[in-house]
């Protein structure tokens, strides 16, 4: 089996557009939320959200008209540009090599789909927008990004809800490990939009602010749900010896992954299912639990999911469970859905490289039902080595990915 090198990354987040800026802000404990205006929140009581207000597509995407791309397409194409630059893939080299793209997303753009449909309802079927229709398929952002950057290799879109980004990284890593691809951009994206916000609110999954304005804190006794974020994050993955041959910077490695599904059909992912994903990732990587330096938890302030994940970590790390430091960066970036797993991966990679793991912002007292774990309340020093990233969906999917530097 081939080895999977990580040779670069591009991030579009509310913490800035470089992995270093992202990690620095997370380590400082900077807050992600901005307070939503009443008109943005609609009928929801929730006022927390991680919208990237400052995103200017023209900063990254020059030379061609942008109208054809919706906002999701723009953040993905921008993240791709940054990842390609970061890993040294120029336009000239791309002409000669078929680089692929694997994008995880939960919604594609539910905003575009809804707007397209609503225009048909309000103006009549004849006056819908053809360009919007092209963006109503969930693989639109991946297709638009491939056109923009001339990416002619495999072009795949993975939709697994909140675990999409991490599943996409696992899918891409396996293509390289088993020899069918040598260079792939892989990661995930989802945009913050009214439709998604309204949907999560109606489903009772968003944090209830209860009069105070703090961003939801994973594992805390006061948690009541998550805050919706957004982002686009792509990593450049390459077959190891090909990366060495072209003199690429090797930032880290994907060692393995695993995923599982909880068929109990009540929506929540039970601790056994999450543990199964983690154990599969450990087994796939050939690594023992005691060798893991740090864990990036999926926890985002959800009442049941945070508890189930904590129980799964305790069960899997069994002994080393109270020693291996656990962070949860959704305490700052919120729940970015398809982008989350990739965002966690980039942040953890930076953490392993710098030796600094961000803390779980705002965590004072974990809930009494949360088993004893080494939850990092503040940033702390860690050893370089192996890092595990978890992604837990609110509908039964769980995924884990192992990286190393």
């Amino acid at each position, binding site marked *: 089996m081939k080895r999977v090198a990580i040779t670069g990354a591009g991030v579009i987040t509310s913490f800035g557009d470089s992995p270093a800026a992202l990690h620095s802000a997370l380590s400082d404990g900077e807050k992600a939320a901005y307070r939503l205006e009443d008109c943005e929140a609609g009928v929801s009581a929730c006022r927390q959200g991680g919208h990237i207000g400052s995103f200017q597509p023209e900063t990254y995407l020059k030379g061609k008209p942008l109208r054809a791309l919706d906002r999701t397409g723009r953040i993905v194409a921008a993240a791709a540009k940054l990842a390609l630059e970061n890993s040294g893939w120029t336009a000239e080299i791309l002409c000669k090599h078929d680089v692929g793209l694997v994008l995880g997303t*939960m919604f594609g753009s539910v905003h575009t789909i809804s707007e397209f*449909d609503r225009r048909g309802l309000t103006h009549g079927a004849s006056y819908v927008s053809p360009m919007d229709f092209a963006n109503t398929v969930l693989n639109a952002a991946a297709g638009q990004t491939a056109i923009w950057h001339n990416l002619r290799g495999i072009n795949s879109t993975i939709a697994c809800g909140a675990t999409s980004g991490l599943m996409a990284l696992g899918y891409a890593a396996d293509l390289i490990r088993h020899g069918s691809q040598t260079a792939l951009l892989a990661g995930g994206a989802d945009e913050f939009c009214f439709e998604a916000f309204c949907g999560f609110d109606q489903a009772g999954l968003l944090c209830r602010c209860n009069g105070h304005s703090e961003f939801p804190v994973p594992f805390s006794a006061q948690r009541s749900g998550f805050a919706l974020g957004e982002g686009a994050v792509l990593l450049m993955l390459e077959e190891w010896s090909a990366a060495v041959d072209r003199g690429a910077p090797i930032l880290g490695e994907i060692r393995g992954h695993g995923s599982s599904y909880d068929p109990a059909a009540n929506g929540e992912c039970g601790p056994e299912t999450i543990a199964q994903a983690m154990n599969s990732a450990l087994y796939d990587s050939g690594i023992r639990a005691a060798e893991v330096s740090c864990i990036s938890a999926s926890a985002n302030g959800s009442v049941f999911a945070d508890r189930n994940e904590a129980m799964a970590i305790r069960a899997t790390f069994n002994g080393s469970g109270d020693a291996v430091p656990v962070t949860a960066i959704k305490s700052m970036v919120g729940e970015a859905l398809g982008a989350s797993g990739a965002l966690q991966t980039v942040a953890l990679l930076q953490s392993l490289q710098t030796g600094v793991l961000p803390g779980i912002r705002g965590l004072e007292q974990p809930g009494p039902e949360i088993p004893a774990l080494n939850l990092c309340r503040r940033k702390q020093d860690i050893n370089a080595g192996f890092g595990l990233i978890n992604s837990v969906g609110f509908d039964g999917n769980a995924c884990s990915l192992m990286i190393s530097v």
Partner: protein
Amino acid sequence: MNSVPSIVVTGLGMVTPIGTGREEFWNALIAGKCGFGPVQSFNTSGYSVHLGAEILDFEPKDHVVRLRTRVIGRSSQLAIAAARLALTDASLDLETIDRRRAGVCVGTTSGEPHFIERFDDRYVQGDIANAGDGLIRGYPCHVVPSHVAAELEFAGETMMIPTACAAGNYAIAHASDVLRAGRADIMLAGGADCFSRITYTGFARLGAIAPELCQPFDRNRKGMVPGEGAGFLLLERKDQAIARGARIYCEVAGYGLSCDAHHMTAAHPQGEGASRAMVMALKQSGVAAEDVDYISAHGTGTPTNDRLETIAMKKTFGELAYRIPVSSVKSMLGHTMGAASAIEAAVCALAITHQQIPPTMNLHEQDPECDLDFVPNQARKRKVKVAMNNAYAFGGNNSSLLFRASAA
């Protein structure tokens, strides 16, 4: 490739506008039965076209046992039906398998559009406060494989690959990789899409829908006919299939996936990406071009697709292209979107099993620019050992899957 396990197809299940289940579906295909009619799911009086390929006799309660049919969307219902049919067809006793090593991989174009259509109806009426939780619990397309897994109590990898009209091929390709890597012991792989107002409206606006018939490769073809359906293949490693005495339809010999990186809704004018996918599939399978006995075409019936697809086949096969029979079952089923290439993969498996090729129906006057052997109007008995399944999608996604008769 020698140490890589062979992956085989041991079960087929489908729900389509011309038949449900392997036997009824195959008999309908060979008889040239078409499933077109005026759209019934919604009012098309504001549209310039009215033709669709809907499934008019589907009863979810006949297939969905564990989940509640009132809560899950139609695409999930169709998917569950096709998945159960594939399992029954494979004579697989679910009591004997490790559920943690049983996975589901599905392709789709729209997922569950009815939920977002209802959300939008309320939105324009100013009633969003009563939208309910359907946009999260019922709509996102990954609920389709989740519902199949929940219905069957599978706990392995569950994934949705929404690469639109090529999605079924992507799902089967990935499922075969999951099995080769030893991450699962059985995979249900397929595609599902229910009839969608959003999809119909978009294709109508593009001028892509035919007014009366789907006529792939015909000189007078005027477009595609949107449809709905679901198709699933049960895949497992060959040694395991043999050990349990399963009937083996064929092997999944290999695949090729590429991207045009050219245009969102129109294929590359020289068939470049499509040809690359075909070449990759041949190479990965170790199959020579002259060994391909049948091609199941994407063949939507639009003027552009059929012309460019012909160019791509000639680019790949050269003079050989004139000797390989090609047919488009969309001439009978219409375009079942994300289900299409999964159903067409089943067609390839059946062609190998029955040594017979389904026709391209409604082919009255062949387009001189589409001058290959498209098996016009009549099914044909022929040796079929290797079959290629091609599918193309928005975003320039190209896919080719190769199936090969399994050596005993």
